[in-house]
């Protein structure tokens, strides 16, 4: 069977599975629609949370970025896993005890204020929509690549499929669909990694392979990689940081607290039967996430090695990288290069006209490398590889069988779709439950509320799809911005709601608004007002990354700090919260008496 047919078959089968589960598990009551009747155990819930969590950014984009960034790419790895420690310790068990559906509901009740709840809805919508734009772009990229259609058509197909199971299935459908998606995506990620680790190091476990010696030599893979990339003028793989140490610190912190503040993840912890299960559930979620996240650095390093080794034969023979015969002849390039050339994401330009591919860092500050390239008659880097194709092309680069390539395609789609569905659910519950029922029409029927939720979902899919057609950047960057927004607005308010009995509504509202606005102000300065290109206002803030060299993706940590400080100061000058709220906080802190989430609040 040829590659394209195999891809259609594998992708088709996995989709039939997801849709079948969604139809089988069609939701009945409101509470089932949102939280699966509160009857999901910690392991299943953890697995669904992991699928929800690992999006197009984790699956398709992250390893490619790490491959380019080297050591600095660790900010994604630590940021997107370390947040679960904060979530498990600081939020999940307490929100489960509180026993409501949504994050705005908690904020509204804890801060005894409709306004606080509405502000939380605003923060949630901005964060979730930003996140979902990135996902829809990812869905479009993956579909177009593997179904052989344009990226725009890919997004339309994706919209239709997300719509089908998110709208008809609700949370129960999503929980079991996501378990299936987790299984597909984790196989798709680890199987090629195992093959490649075997090829390069003889060790089948990628996590150990990255730290092992190359096959048939006594030099370790990382050491070899360091040598090769440095000689070609790139930064040393194991030590190059992301910008400054301060930026890497802030970026990691921003992703961590953003993780703990993202509503679609927090919502997951309302679906477990007890407080104890909520704690364990976070642990299980991280176990399942860690399988992918500890494999990713191996994928990144090995893909880099394979890529350079493909275009420069001296890597394998330990010869002179700059010798004429070392560079691959363009005419003899492998098939996978031809396939990706069609997409425009891999480009070759013969700058010195020798018919061979020279891949190196032509802007290097390494004088030694620059001199060698000059002497060899190299006239600039001739191969441009988009970071986002690394994971998808990885099995092709390593010349693995067709079914593995097809599996990776199915995994990428599963990752993008599952997260999009989870986000849509968070958006729909915020609008139907917190805004329509909570503010505008308190006596709406259960049926009416369910309908409002479905309409909200449909509208969000259309809006996200439209914005996905014209995205502010690729998935990972857009997604990191969403984390910054969640970190600066929601996390501090929720945390203070649990850990401070005295925090009042004035403080919380002022904190959320100032955190949200200062972050958006800094982000929009770089990315354009509401992500519309051409409306950037960098001169106003004094140039790019003007705040101590911190990039907009890392600014969420600063926003969160502002949120805490403003809330604390405003709280000092306003009235303490009423007595019953202080009792509420006390009751949230102890597990006993946790009830199943009730659909009719």
């Amino acid at each position, binding site marked *: 069977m040829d590659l394209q047919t195999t891809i259609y078959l594998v992708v088709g089968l996995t989709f039939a599975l997801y849709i079948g589960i969604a139809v089988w598990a069609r939701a009945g009551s409101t509470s089932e629609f949102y939280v699966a009747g509160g009857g999901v155990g910690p392991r299943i819930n953890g697995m669904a949370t992991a699928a929800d969590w690992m999006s197009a950014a984790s699956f398709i984009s992250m390893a490619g970025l*790490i491959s380019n960034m080297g*050591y600095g*790419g*660790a900010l994604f*790895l*630590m940021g997107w*896993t*370390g947040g*679960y*420690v904060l979530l*498990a*310790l*600081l939020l999940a*068990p307490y929100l489960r005890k509180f026993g409501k559906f949504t994050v705005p509901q908690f904020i509204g009740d804890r801060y005894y204020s409709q306004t606080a709840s509405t502000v939380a809805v605003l923060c949630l919508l901005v964060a979730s929509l930003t996140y979902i734009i990135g996902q829809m772009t990812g869905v479009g990229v993956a579909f177009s690549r593997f179904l052989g259609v344009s990226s725009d058509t890919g997004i339309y197909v994706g919209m239709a499929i997300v719509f089908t199971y998110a709208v008809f299935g609700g949370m129960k459908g999503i929980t079991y669909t996501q378990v299936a998606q987790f299984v597909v995506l984790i196989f798709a990620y680890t199987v090629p990694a195992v093959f490649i680790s075997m090829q390069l190091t003889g060790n089948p476990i990628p*996590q*150990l392979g*990255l*730290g*092992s*010696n190359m096959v048939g030599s006594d030099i*370790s*893979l*990382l*050491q070899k990689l360091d040598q090769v990339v440095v000689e070609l003028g790139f930064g040393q793989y*194991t*030590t190059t940081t992301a910008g400054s*140490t301060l930026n*890497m*610190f802030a970026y*990691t*912190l921003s992703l961590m607290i953003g993780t703990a503040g993202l509503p679609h993840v927090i919502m997951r912890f309302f679906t477990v039967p*007890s*407080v*104890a299960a909520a*704690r*364990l559930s*976070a*642990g299980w979620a*991280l*176990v399942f996430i*860690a399988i992918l*996240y*500890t494999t990713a*650095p191996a994928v990144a390093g090995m893909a880099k090695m394979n890529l350079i080794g493909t275009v420069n034969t001296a890597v394998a023979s330990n010869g002179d990288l700059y010798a004429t015969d070392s560079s691959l002849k363009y005419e003899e390039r492998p098939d996978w290069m031809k396939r990706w050339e069609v997409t425009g994401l891999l480009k070759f330009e013969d700058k010195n006209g020798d018919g061979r591919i020279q891949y190196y860092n032509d802007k290097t500050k390494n004088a030694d490398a620059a001199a060698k390239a000059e002497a060899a008659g190299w006239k600039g880097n001739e191969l441009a590889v988009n970071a986002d194709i690394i994971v998808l092309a990885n099995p092709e680069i390593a010349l693995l069988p067709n079914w593995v390539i097809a599996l990776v395609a199915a995994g990428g789609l599963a990752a993008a779709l599952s997260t999009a569905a989870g986000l849509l659910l968070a958006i729909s519950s915020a609008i139907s439950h917190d805004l329509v029922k909570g503010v505008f029409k308190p006596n709406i029927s259960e049926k009416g509320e369910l309908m409002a939720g479905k309409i909200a979902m449909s509208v969000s899919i259309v809006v996200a799809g439209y914005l996905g057609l014209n995205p502010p950047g690729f998935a990972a960057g857009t997604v990191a911005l969403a984390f910054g927004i969640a970190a600066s607005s929601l996390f501090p308010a929720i945390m203070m709601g649990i850990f401070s009995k005295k925090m009042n509504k004035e403080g919380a509202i002022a904190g959320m608004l100032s955190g949200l606005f200062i972050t958006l102000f800094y982000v929009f300065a770089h990315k354009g007002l509401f992500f519309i290109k051409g409306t950037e206002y960098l001169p106003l803030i004094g140039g790019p990354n003007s705040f101590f060299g911190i990039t907009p993706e890392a600014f969420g940590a600063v926003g969160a700090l502002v949120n805490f400080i403003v809330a604390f100061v405003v709280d000092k000058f306003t009235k303490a919260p009423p007595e019953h709220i202080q009792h509420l906080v*006390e009751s949230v*802190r*102890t*597990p*006993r*008496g*946790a009830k199943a989430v009730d659909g009719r609040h």
Partner: protein
Amino acid sequence: MDKSGEAYWKATLGLLTKILVIWFLVSFGAGILFADMLNGIHLGGYPLGFWFAQQGSIYIFVALIFYYAKKMDQIDRKFDVHEE
């Protein structure tokens, strides 16, 4: 909050502080601030700072959450606030 409630909360905060200190030390400490220093030591083919940043911190995060869940369960029972 009564006496036992206060003691329960104090025990909880004590546990949280302990775990968060380790959380900070392995990620921001070993993985970022002291990574350069630790890179002088090797764990198999991994420089140690690089290993903490791209592998080790993640394993330790997982262990921390399960340790937390277990310890909290003990604290809940000790102060008799556990669920049925």
